[in-house]
């Protein structure tokens, strides 16, 4: 059972890495800063692991570490999406007239 999970996880990892390479290679250098802040926000999906840890409350240590982890990840989610959107809003083409 454990080995099955492991092999499935490896397949997922390899496929996701390939998709990641192909998709991100196409991102214009113009947007490399927003790319980094967006992937950082998406990476904070680790919050789901922290939520379960804090919610299950299997030990005091798990509750404390899980709670701190939720705070850290949530600040990345909120801050990351806000700043990415702020940056992208600023990118304007000279062909589209500004109001």
């Amino acid at each position, binding site marked *: 059972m454990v080995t099955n999970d492991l092999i499935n996880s490896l397949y997922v990892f390899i496929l996701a890495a390939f998709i990641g390479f192909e998709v*991100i290679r196409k991102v214009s250098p113009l947007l490399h800063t927003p790319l980094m802040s967006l992937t950082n926000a998406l990476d904070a999906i680790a919050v789901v692991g922290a939520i379960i840890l804090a919610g299950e409350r299997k030990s005091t240590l798990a509750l404390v570490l899980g709670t701190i982890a939720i705070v850290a990840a949530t600040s990345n989610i909120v801050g990351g999406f806000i700043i990415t959107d702020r940056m992208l809003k600023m990118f304007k083409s000279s062909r589209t007239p500004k109001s």
Partner: protein
Amino acid sequence: MIPQSHLIEATYIIAVVLFILSLKWLSSPATARRGVWAGEAGMLLAIVGTLLYQGIVDYKWIAIALVLGAIIGVPLGNVQMTAVPQRTALSHAFGALCVTLVGTAEFYLRTPNVPPFVMSVLSLEVILGGLTFTGSLMAAGKLQEILPQRPITYKGQNFVNLGMLGVAVVLAVMLVRDPSNTHLYPIMVGISLIFGIMMIVPIGGADMPTVISLLNSYAGLSAAAMGFVLNSKLLIVAGSLDGASGFILSVNMSKAMNRSFTNVLFGAFGQVQTAAAGAVEQRNVRSATPEEAAAILSAANKVVIVPGYGMAVAQAQHKVRELYDSLTKRGIDVRFGIHPVAGRMPGHMNVLLAEADIPYDKLLDMDEINGELPQTDVALIIGANDVTNPAARTDASSPIYGMPILDVDKARTVMVIKRSMSPGFAGIDNPLYYLDNNLMLFGDAKQFVNSIVRELSGGGGH
């Protein structure tokens, strides 16, 4: 009735699709904002799905933590654009902290029944997470100038660093063989935390774009490792997307500096300083006043502006925009040439110029602009140095030999705004400044650009 676990899994699958679309839409500025919305929707869905999980017995702390995280996140999302590099480093630190804490809690919950494979990825998770946490805090501190920006090197540094990493790996192996050795765990995490600090000590400001990208990659990989530990496909996908992104950016950055990863991490640029300083000789340098610079610019048809970190430090981007406006109004074609490692993180200059309302189709990357520079009348360099140094093309003894540069010396006239003749970060003399077609404009970037703009708008008639 659909079982709850299937419902949660369904939200995760949709979240994965939305995450991939999010990055796909980011490929062009026209669809990029849609990408942010897709990411937000996926994130919200996954979090709501997780909150439905029946094993959760207590929501109080989760709620408090989510609110607290949001309270910290809002100001971090609203920092000034010039502070984006340090904010990014800080967010890598937070991401890595989350992963390290979850991994640590998992270890203490499961020990001594941890299968060897799980213990291996868990060790990878917390070693990478730990070093990324402290390393990113150090990087943020250097970028914020709380810590000295100069690289600090000492004899045997690489030996010490590699030795520490080696000990951490040995401890990990011992834990894999016998996970009941709980006393080894804090030592392993402690060493990776210290390693993160030591790793960034020899890194200087100009290496920051590579280092931030590398830390980004580590943060992603540690999250993917956490996905293996928790058997969460969602985390594996998100972590490998982040890891792939950081990896691609690191490769781009090191290529743009003609250096390998190992060279960035183990060979501080500062070491070449003494070697280069000996070769100073008196050569002719021509300088010009703002009036002269304005006259040359207004006589041009094609102008390329090359911004660097100096423009960010002087906060000159809005003045540069005024210069862009007044030149464009005269029918002069103005474009920007942006080197991949200009600034302190990938894409740093683009964001600053976009903030100043310069249209993004005027921002060209190195390969595009290099084809145009021989037909350019004036190349105006604002706060960039090493990325314009022709020695990288011609002088095999130069420490930056082989690094791809912006060929500004091929423009008819080159003008460099610079405070003084002192060499750039790498301590390398720039032969560009002694060329016959080069004019030095001595002064603060913001003030000098302002004086040029005033000249152009004032005395332009006669």
